[in-house]
């Protein structure tokens, strides 16, 4: 018999019961909640007279709607305020731990989970949010769920699932200087497409993945969902274990040693068989910039905007034409000639300390270009913010003309006051460039933190691998 993939192992560890048709009841070790997708679930629980199965496995935080300025004034928008207050009320009523808006640990749900050690290797992690795939970076099986499933997990601590197929994405060799985790994952999506991972759990492996920090691994797994896979995984190694040692919710004392032993086996066996394997040459990846309204519409920064006329598939050609029109771009235009209006450094993809450091290296001692109307840096959590401030990163950004904000989702999806105006163009470190994502009529280009900072300084896209050191 052939060996097991990491996904096979995680799956088997969590099966409570399997039906004849292969659908299984899967135990959920960690359930994360936020204000947008939970109110209707609590409403359903209440209506049915049910109670949470195991309160301690739930952790809640308000992130999508929270303001990133003047937090002491509360939330001005009544609808946003109602959602956040509803979360506070529900958590109090059902005895669920919540990091409220004024808690120092508050932040984006996918940043605080690993940061607190609330999501750990070997766990099943779910949240009513598609970027839950982020937590797979620690060798956890983590995926987004819908609100009915949020209710299901609250009531039963389980989910009904069918096993996905195994896809291995192997990054061979090492990336060049200036090429980050974000460029790796954008290049992968450019290659396999936004539906390339449909029906699969993706394991990211290879030398270039092993060389990434935990923060970088989270960036890669975060965008597994943009490649169509519900979950992305990276095997446990020393980097993983070192990261979790001493985190507030991580096991302590003898439990830690027991956990470490258990986690050591969280990798695919050498003879494991994958349903599909994609090989990628990491050394060939350059800094990436999306030009369209889907993450797969991406090119390297030294290329030009593609020409729909050279696309053979009619449906694809149509969506390229529509994307160019929406984005206000012309085929053949050099990416480095694209002038931006706003810059957003943040989101659950790129708001961790390492991301802020990479942006700060580029911004240090420079000034925003005159055409930049707004450049936001939004740390992923209160603790990331504190860490950055202790390193003086806030000063670097403020001196260069960036705004330094309170943690939250912010302009990633523009549910709070941070957004693009119609027709505005943004260099953004977030994960989605769909029409209207960052504000009605707004135009989003997805890039790495270093690339976003470089665009803020130059006023247009530039190749950070040419400006050198340590990005």
């Amino acid at each position, binding site marked *: 018999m052939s060996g097991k993939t990491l996904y096979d192992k995680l799956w088997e560890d969590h099966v*409570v*019961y399997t039906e004849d*048709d292969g*659908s299984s*009841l899967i*135990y959920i070790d960690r359930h994360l909640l936020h204000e*947008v*997708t939970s*109110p*209707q679930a609590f*409403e359903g629980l209440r209506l*049915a007279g049910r109670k949470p199965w*195991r*309160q301690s496995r739930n952790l809640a935080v308000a992130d999508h709607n929270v303001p990133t300025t003047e937090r002491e004034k509360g939330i001005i928008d009544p*609808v*946003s305020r*109602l*959602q956040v207050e*509803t979360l506070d009320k529900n958590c109090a009523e059902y005895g669920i731990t919540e990091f409220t808006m004024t808690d120092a640990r508050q932040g984006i749900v996918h940043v605080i989970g690993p940061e607190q050690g609330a999501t750990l290797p070997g*766990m099943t992690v779910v949240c*009513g*949010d*598609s970027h839950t795939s982020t937590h797979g970076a620690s060798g956890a099986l983590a995926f*987004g*769920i*819908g*609100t*009915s*499933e949020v209710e*299901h997990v609250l*009531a*039963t*601590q*389980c989910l009904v699932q*069918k096993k996905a197929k195994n896809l291995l994405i192997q990054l061979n060799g090492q990336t060049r200087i200036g090429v980050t985790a974000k460029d790796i994952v954008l290049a992968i999506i450019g290659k396999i497409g*936004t*539906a390339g991972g*449909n029906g699969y759990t993706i394991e990211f492996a290879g030398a270039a993945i092993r060389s990434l920090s935990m923060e970088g691994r989270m960036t890669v797994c975060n965008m597994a969902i943009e490649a*169509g896979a*519900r979950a992305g995984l990276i095997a446990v190694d020393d980097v993983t274990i070192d990261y979790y040692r001493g985190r507030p919710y991580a*096991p*302590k004392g003898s*439990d830690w040693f*027991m*956990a470490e032993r*258990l986690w050591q086996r969280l990798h695919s066996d050498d003879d494991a068989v994958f349903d599909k394997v994609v090989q990628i040459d990491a050394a060939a990846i350059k800094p990436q910039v999306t030009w369209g309204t*889907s993450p797969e519409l991406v090119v390297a920064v030294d290329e030009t905007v593609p020409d729909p006329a050279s696309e053979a598939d009619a*449906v*694809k050609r*149509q*969506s390229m034409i529509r994307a160019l029109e929406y984005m206000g771009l012309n085929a053949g235009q050099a990416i480095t000639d694209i002038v931006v209006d706003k810059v957003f450094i943040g989101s659950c993809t790129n708001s961790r300390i390492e991301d802020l450091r990479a942006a700060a290296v580029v911004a240090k001692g420079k000034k925003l270009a005159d055409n930049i109307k707004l450049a936001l840096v939004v740390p992923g959590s209160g603790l990331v913010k504190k860490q950055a401030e202790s390193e003086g990163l806030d000063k670097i950004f403020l001196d260069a003309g960036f705004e330094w904000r309170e943690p939250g989702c912010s302009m990633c*999806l*523009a*549910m709070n006051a941070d957004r693009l105006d119609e027709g505005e163009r943004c260099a953004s470190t977030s994960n*989605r460039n*769909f*029409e*209207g*994502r960052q504000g*009605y009529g707004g135009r989003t280009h997805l890039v790495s933190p270093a690339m976003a900072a470089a665009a803020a300084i130059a006023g247009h896209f530039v190749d950070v691998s040419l400006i050198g050191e340590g990005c």
Partner: protein
Amino acid sequence: MRAFTTLTALVAPLDRANVDTDAIIPKQFLKSIRRAGFGPYLFDEWRYLDRGEPDMDCVQRPVNPDFVLNKPQYKGAEILLARENFGCGSSREHAPWALEDFGFRAIIAPSFADIFYNNCFKNGLLPIPLASAIVDDLFGELFDGYCLTIDLANQKIITAKGKELSFEVDENRKYRLLNGLDDIALSLQYADKIRYYETERAKRAPWLFAD
């Protein structure tokens, strides 16, 4: 949950690939804490000429006459005919809620995004994946007043021309949809198994059950 057995209904065509959940229900409507009432904002950015906000009275808003669902011949459509990768993007369950609240009961497309596909079944909506070529044919044979019959028990679609098409659906999901059954009640039938699992797992990973 509303049961789905057989349905004969008008078909509306949405001839675009990769329709994402942001397009199905734009994010400003996610602020609602309710489950119902999203229908008037379905495809909001395509359907109206102004910018939609929660609690707007949609009757007063300028509609986009070119958008398919605004055309009089598709009024009352309960089946949506769409293109590949329908429902991609954010996991928001508001997307099936909005489609259902608008009046749709089934969606036919060459492929669906995973999470969206799952969410449909939980909300009494039937997503039907059919081969691209068959979906092309259906787009090709549409005429005003075109209806399809969907028979879930027998996994069959009967076209206006009387042609029968069979489709795939997982047995378990079909059973639940046919009977309008609530997922949670079904899972709680296994409460003893869940408790047993917890006891066994606690031996291997006690820190997960420290409370």
